[in-house]
């Protein structure tokens, strides 16, 4: 199957903005991603080590406000993201198991840095109370001061470190 072209980015952005507005109109909240991963972590810890959850203030507070961590808006939304991404990939001929990277590095290097980047992003998203979706994009759309600050911090840091990480990408 021939790989189709990507959508025009301005059209894509407009459609994404409309989805964001629909989320606000229906559910009173914007999009997110990292919150779903946190729900999964808390649910996992609760299943594997229930006594640990009861003895740890952070988990105890979270479970008190979210009695069923997996029955959350963001968990259902992220399940949808996986389905939607798969559908678009299937229609466009992009379903393929592969490691994407600069031609200059090995798969092992790419995977190592992907895990490292994920650890940082996972930790940072908790500290920043949301990631690019929940804090930066949604925060900016509601004109939240915190949203603008987080967005600027993410992009400024990535630009500042881009030179040092260039071998990973170019």
């Amino acid at each position, binding site marked *: 199957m021939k790989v189709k072209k990507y959508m025009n980015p301005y059209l894509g952005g407009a459609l994404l903005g409309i989805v964001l507005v629909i*989320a606000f109109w*229906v559910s009173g909240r914007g999009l997110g991603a990292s919150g779903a991963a946190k729900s999964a972590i808390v649910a996992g810890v609760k299943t594997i080590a229930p006594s640990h959850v009861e003895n740890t203030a952070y988990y105890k507070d979270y479970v008190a406000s979210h009695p069923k961590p997996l029955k959350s808006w963001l968990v259902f939304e992220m399940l949808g993201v996986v389905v939607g991404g798969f559908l678009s990939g299937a229609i*466009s001929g992009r379903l393929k198991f592969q490691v994407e990277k600069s031609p200059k590095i090995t798969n092992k290097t790419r995977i190592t840095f992907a895990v490292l980047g994920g650890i940082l992003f996972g930790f940072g998203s908790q500290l*920043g109370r949301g990631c*690019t979706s929940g804090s930066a994009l949604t925060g900016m759309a509601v004109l939240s001061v915190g949203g603008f600050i987080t967005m600027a911090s993410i992009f400024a840091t990535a630009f500042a470190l881009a030179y040092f990480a260039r071998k990973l990408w170019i």
Partner: protein
Amino acid sequence: MGPLIVNEIISENANMLFAFLIGIGFGYILEANGFSSSRRLAGMFYGYDTTVLKVFFTAAVVGALGLLFLSLFGQIDLNFIYINPTYLYSAIGGGVIMGAGFILGGYCPGTSFCAASIGKIDAMAFIGGIFIGILVFTEGFPLWEEFYNAKFLGAPVLNEVIGTSRGVLTLGIILVALAMFWVGEWAEKKFARDDYTINQK
């Protein structure tokens, strides 16, 4: 009448169904724009592909305008919209750590799930990292609790802080976005690469 859930027009379970459907739209649009490609996302920081900038800012502008119009026509009560609270230190600190994660890992959380759904193995590794990072945060929470809660400023919105209306600020954001799009288009020509093609309409 909106938000539907707050005004009890739809049930809690229906809200979960809508979350799933909204997620499908979100994931489909991310993938169709190539947010499932780490080299495309990283291209933003080297100028050879600025799709992230174009999509992100167009979405933020359409989102802000959409809310403004829905509110103007009485379709949504903005008082019931969740405004992200601002904790100054953790907003900056979290952003800095996320920025480092972005340039090293090539994804953010939403895009990594989208990329994993079409088979990107590096995205699956990134997701594994996200879970580890969150677990480190939750397990070690007392260590950074103070920093996490420091400098709480409430849930301020930018237009009130700078003393203007929502509409004027949105207009300002649109103008800034247009300037950035111009820079993006310029950068893609200036930093174009032989080993990378922007394959889009």
